[in-house]
């Protein structure tokens, strides 16, 4: 990435004004992945100094600032102890410790990366995202939207649920061939699958079957039916399907 100008604003309003007035400007969070992209950027707006690096629990809601590093999430007491450790587990094998000291959760969400180990968990947990201008929205809504020129401030997670995340990697810190997350709240189950190799998606019908009929085999069949699984250089569609179905079964067993 070729950057023509680089600014570190001292307030969210300053960052937003810069973004609004420069249509081609890019928000820099950790920057580790963004820098690899081959493009020219007239203005990089780095949100490092805006106080968005925190993890707070309030009345069973976990609020994670967008600039919180993945290593901080991995080792945070709430991430480790709540939700079966799902939040810690989802980031554990994303690069090495070094990279996780740079990469932020906000950057991982806003990038909507296909390979993301984070998105399936956040979708299954049905988290809320708080943006500076657009306000609070559900993660599925964000995934479908083409929201631009806004700044993610916070990720809000309801801790009154349980969850399990699974991923398969050819080596310990490689990108996942497939990743699957399942969460159970008072209304039922939510399943999400990513790296299929497409962007993580909520498996609506499969989740519904599991919630209403508690039939894991039928939910597994539906999962393979309702989401697309494709072949790429990492794995074939068949392999991905086999893994996804097995992961669903294993995760469900761990959850109930």
């Amino acid at each position, binding site marked *: 990435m070729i*950057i023509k100008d680089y600014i*570190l604003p001292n307030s969210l309003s300053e960052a937003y004004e810069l973004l609004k007035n420069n249509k081609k400007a890019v928000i820099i969070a950790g*920057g580790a992945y963004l*820098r690899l992209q081959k493009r020219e950027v007239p203005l*990089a707006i780095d949100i490092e100094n805006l106080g968005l690096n925190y993890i707070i629990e309030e009345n069973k809601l976990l609020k994670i600032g967008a600039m919180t590093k993945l290593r901080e999430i991995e080792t945070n007491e709430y991430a480790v102890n709540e939700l079966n450790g799902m939040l810690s587990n989802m980031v554990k094998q994303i690069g*090495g*410790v070094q*990279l996780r000291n*740079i990469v932020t959760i906000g950057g991982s969400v806003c990038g909507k990366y296909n390979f993301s180990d984070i998105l399936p968990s956040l979708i299954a947990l049905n988290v809320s995202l708080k943006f500076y201008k657009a306000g609070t929205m559900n993660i599925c809504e964000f995934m479908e939207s083409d929201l631009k020129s806004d700044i993610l401030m916070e990720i809000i997670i309801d801790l009154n649920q349980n969850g399990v995340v699974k991923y398969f990697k050819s080596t310990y*810190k490689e990108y996942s061939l497939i990743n699957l997350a399942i969460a159970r709240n008072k209304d039922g189950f939510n399943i999400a699958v990513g790296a299929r190799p497409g962007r993580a998606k909520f498996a609506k019908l499969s989740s519904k079957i599991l919630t209403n009929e508690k039939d894991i085999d039928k939910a597994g069949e539906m999962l393979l039916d309702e989401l697309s699984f494709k072949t790429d250089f990492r794995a074939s569609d068949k392999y991905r399907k086999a893994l996804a179905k097995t992961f669903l079964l294993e995760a469900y067993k761990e959850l109930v």
Partner: protein
Amino acid sequence: MIPIILNVNNVNYEIMVKPGEMLLDTLRKIGFTSVKKSCDTGSCGICSVLVDGKVIPSCSYFTMKIQNKKVITIDGVEEKAREIGQFLLDEGVDQCGFCTPGLIMSIIAMENELTEFTEENIKHYLVGNICRCSGYEGQIRAIKNYLEVS
């Protein structure tokens, strides 16, 4: 070019950097060639340095983020590096040596951060440091010897 103050090993450097410059390139430019450049994608750990005590791949860190933070390279922990290096030498795993400065910086960060040094913990912490000479068994032995764990 943008003027910044970069604190490396407790010395302030007043320098000019390009807006999108990465810390690795800045460090090498001002003479810290102990910080090696390899994959340049944040995968291999060879360019690891400490920023405010945390180990990071300097190739993936924008220099502009560094103001008011402190960078430590292997030059700033010479005595400790020699000590750890001797354990690596004793196991014969210094080999080509290219990945050693980055590995040592990660070992120092691990020693400061972790409280329990099981083999699993050590491997999880150091998986971001790649060596292309060997199969890691010797390194693990050396690190365990250094940490005095079995």
